[in-house]
């Protein structure tokens, strides 16, 4: 009992989020399932951006590159090499992580907007390669008929099945990233964001941790892309334009830096909003722009500021008693 209570106390936001998603899902309409699944994919994607930009302070404008690499790798592995879909997804994430490692090295020399531009360029290279390497990617025609996930003979082809699967993946990733970022590693990421020289002066190997952030982030984005491929069952280079990176960046900004509940909130709000605002067609972009400006002006901490789940809690004890002792103000 006590354990359940503790769990609820610690994860109430996430449970609330799940309930929030469940409402449309329980209506049973396949369209709602689809929107909810896209929410899950964007949650993963936004967490990946937050890890590298929000925690570690390395601006990435080309996160879609890893999303694309994950999607294409998993698709090609499943279709050309008959790798089971779930395994292909994981491998897709790993291949994206390898590219994260490659982009992590130049990232050591660049910072701020320069790094942003470099990642943007990388994303464009990936998209161009997917257009030109016709033998592998079928170029602009795209790859149709991507196999659906298959768990021990059970083919996932219903809206509910996909939704359950993305929820499972998201939960695993969320808990892992939550544990990581609330530990000292999260604190180290934040010190790199705050002041690299100071971080180095206390013995932090910033090169290692920057690359670690890039690799983990690429892995998560790769998984998101792979899942998307096996969910939509059709991918083409037009799925991976830079606007996608900016959409996810908007979700991250809306959620707030260095906050996982914030990222979840940002991803859900913008995914649902873009569906709800479909009648506005192209004018939706104006909505995103206005929303971003409003957040930066009035609520720079985003949703995390409203929920009060920002980074000040990183590194604090999980044990309530110890926490209270630490937070007790006043005398010594």
């Amino acid at each position, binding site marked *: 009992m006590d354990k359940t209570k503790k769990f609820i106390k610690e994860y109430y936001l996430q449970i609330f989020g799940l309930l929030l998603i469940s409402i449309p899902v329980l209506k049973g309409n396949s369209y709602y399932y689809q929107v909810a699944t896209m929410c899950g994919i964007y949650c993963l994607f936004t967490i990946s951006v937050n890890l590298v930009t929000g925690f570690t302070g390395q601006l990435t404008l080309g996160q879609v590159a890893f999303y694309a690499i994950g999607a294409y790798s998993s698709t090609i592995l499943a279709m050309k090499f008959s790798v089971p879909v779930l395994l292909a997804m994981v491998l897709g994430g790993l291949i994206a992580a390898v590219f994260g490692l490659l982009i992590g090295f130049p990232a050591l020399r660049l910072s701020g907007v320069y790094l942003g531009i470099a990642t943007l360029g990388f994303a464009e290279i990936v998209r161009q390669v997917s257009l030109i390497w016709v033998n592998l990617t079928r170029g602009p025609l795209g790859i149709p008929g991507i196999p659906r996930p298959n768990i021990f003979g059970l083919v996932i082809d219903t809206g509910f099945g996909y939704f359950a699967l993305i929820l499972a993946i998201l939960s695993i990733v969320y808990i892992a990233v939550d544990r*990581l970022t609330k*530990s*000292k590693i999260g604190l180290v990421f*934040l010190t790199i964001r705050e*002041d690299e020289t100071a971080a180095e002066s*206390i013995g932090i190997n910033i090169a290692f941790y920057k690359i670690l952030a890039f690799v983990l982030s690429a892995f998560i984005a790769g998984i998101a892309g792979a899942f998307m491929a096996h969910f939509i069952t059709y991918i083409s280079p037009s799925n991976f334009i830079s606007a996608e990176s900016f959409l996810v960046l908007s979700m991250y900004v809306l959620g707030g830096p260095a906050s996982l509940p914030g990222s979840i909130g940002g991803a859900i709000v913008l995914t649902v909003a873009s569906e709800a605002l479909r009648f506005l067609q192209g004018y939706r972009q104006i909505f995103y722009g206005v929303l971003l400006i409003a957040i930066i002006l009035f609520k720079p901490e985003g949703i995390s500021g409203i929920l009060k789940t920002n980074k000040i809690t990183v590194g604090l004890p999980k044990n309530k008693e110890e926490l209270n002792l630490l937070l007790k103000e006043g005398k010594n």
Partner: protein
Amino acid sequence: MTHILKINNLSKHFGGLKAVSGISFGIEECKISGLIGPNGSGKTTTLNMISGLLTPTAGEIYFKDTNIVGKKMAEINRMGIARTFQQIRLFPELTCFQNVLAARHTREGEAWWHPIVMPKKSEAEAKKSRQKSLEILDFVGIYEHRNTQAKNLSYGNQRKLEIARALATEPKLLLLDEPVAGMNPTESEGIVSLLKKLRADGLTAILVEHTMNVVMNICDDIVVLDMGQIIAEGKPAEILANQRVIDAYLGKRGGKGDA
């Protein structure tokens, strides 16, 4: 007397500017050594070379008989040299407690994936670090500000936090770059007594400072730099009586005190 740090013929040139040219001196264990000199005499450059922020143009720096030239700042810190900065460099958005806790991290041999796969073991380790961090905050005297964001601290307390963060890495040698610059007398008194307490605990420190009464008050030995060269070495009393120092440092303008 053993030298914990030995500097041999150390030079740093920035293009044509010889910031430091061929200085040699030794730092004795468990003492506070002052590094003084007029503005632009190469004190901070020397400190930056010792801590690994700058790579020397020539010369060697031996820390406990190991040449540390060419090593990275993080590596040098892990060997036991910690520093503070002339321009305070804290992690402004983090609390005092988090600032110190982050510095404890490098003193634990924990792989990055431990918190994910074995959270219990990792938490036990973290608990020790948290305890130690609080002790350090208490020692330095900013325990009651532990939950204040570093950017919201008073100037004096920011300096103390920087020292606390450096101490959290358990250094053998502490490099202090103008720790009392811009402080009022009460605040600087606090830093002086803190440094004396640290020396009593066996810490070795190099102090770069302009405030003469602080230097004369706590330094055991003093090295005087001018134009990138050593012009005098010795006890505070000897330095005060040295004519070259008076000419170069205290100036011919006849000014005394904070030069």
